[in-house]
């Protein structure tokens, strides 16, 4: 298992999948900040004051990390950012499920009206596993 996860091909595939998902998801949300701001508000965890700035910045963190991951730049840093985001997303989804909110997850902007639920949790966990593998097995580029 370890040799599979640490092989260059596997890590490359993981990088490409994560990069595409995050670039795509980020761009969709960045294009319509007002919609995303409302999706953020629906989770009911962020104050009104911070809701817009979060909706403006988070999609671009996703896009930038995705692009850097695709080009193989700062792999450990970007896989950390993406993994932390995925953990945060899952906490948000889980709390929404526990509170019984059947809200659109807002994950890919307005193009998919996916409701928060177990499927979303599993998808995020799968992506998280890829992110952690990239962090664990890719070489540090800190000194480049």
């Amino acid at each position, binding site marked *: 298992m370890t040799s599979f996860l640490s092989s260059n091909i596997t890590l490359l595939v993981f990088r490409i999948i994560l990069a595409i998902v995050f670039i795509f998801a980020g761009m969709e949300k960045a294009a319509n900040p007002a919609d995303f701001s409302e999706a953020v508000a629906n989770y009911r965890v962020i104050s009104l004051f911070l809701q817009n700035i979060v*909706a403006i910045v988070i999609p671009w963190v996703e896009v930038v990390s995705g692009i850097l991951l695709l080009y193989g730049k700062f792999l450990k840093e970007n896989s950390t950012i993406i993994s932390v985001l995925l953990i945060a997303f899952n906490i948000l989804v889980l709390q929404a499920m526990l509170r019984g909110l059947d809200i659109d997850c807002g994950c890919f902007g307005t193009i998919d009206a996916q409701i928060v639920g177990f499927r979303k949790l599993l998808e995020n966990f799968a992506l998280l596993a890829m992110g952690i593998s990239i962090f664990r097995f890719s070489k540090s580029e800190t000194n480049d």
Partner: protein
Amino acid sequence: MNKQFLLNIVYILLGSALLGISYNVISPNGIPLFAEKTQLIKTGLDDFITSPNNSEENTAREIDLKTAFEIHQKGLAKFVDGRDEWEYGEGRIAGAINIPDYNFEDHIDKYNSMDKSLNYIVYCGGEDCDISIRLAKKMKELGFTNVYVFSGGWDQWFAANFPVDND
């Protein structure tokens, strides 16, 4: 974790934030950096009684705690809790009905069949939430004519020890 690693993360995050904020400035879809609560027209009890219909106005009118309490005591309006079912179940203004804002569109038919000419007072958690304002807007768009926002919401009502219900 070395220092350079953390610094790189900070640089990536700052760069992304800068890109996001810059794009937001030039984008036609840009939004204010910090959301502000919509300013509403304040209404007292006399206005409320004499001319409750505000369907011609773009925003809902607002009432304060004292007016909300008087309206509640006199039974002049239905109170509408715009929060989710969970918060509504935990505690609500006595007699309030629940119209959760987050899935309003899913239950349009139900809301459409309500009496739209009655007086409705919409509220949410308190001063810091804008759910009530959003919900009031949606109700007005649906044809409700006498919709008001009690912006002090559940927090003020509960703190004042006014009548409440819970499940």
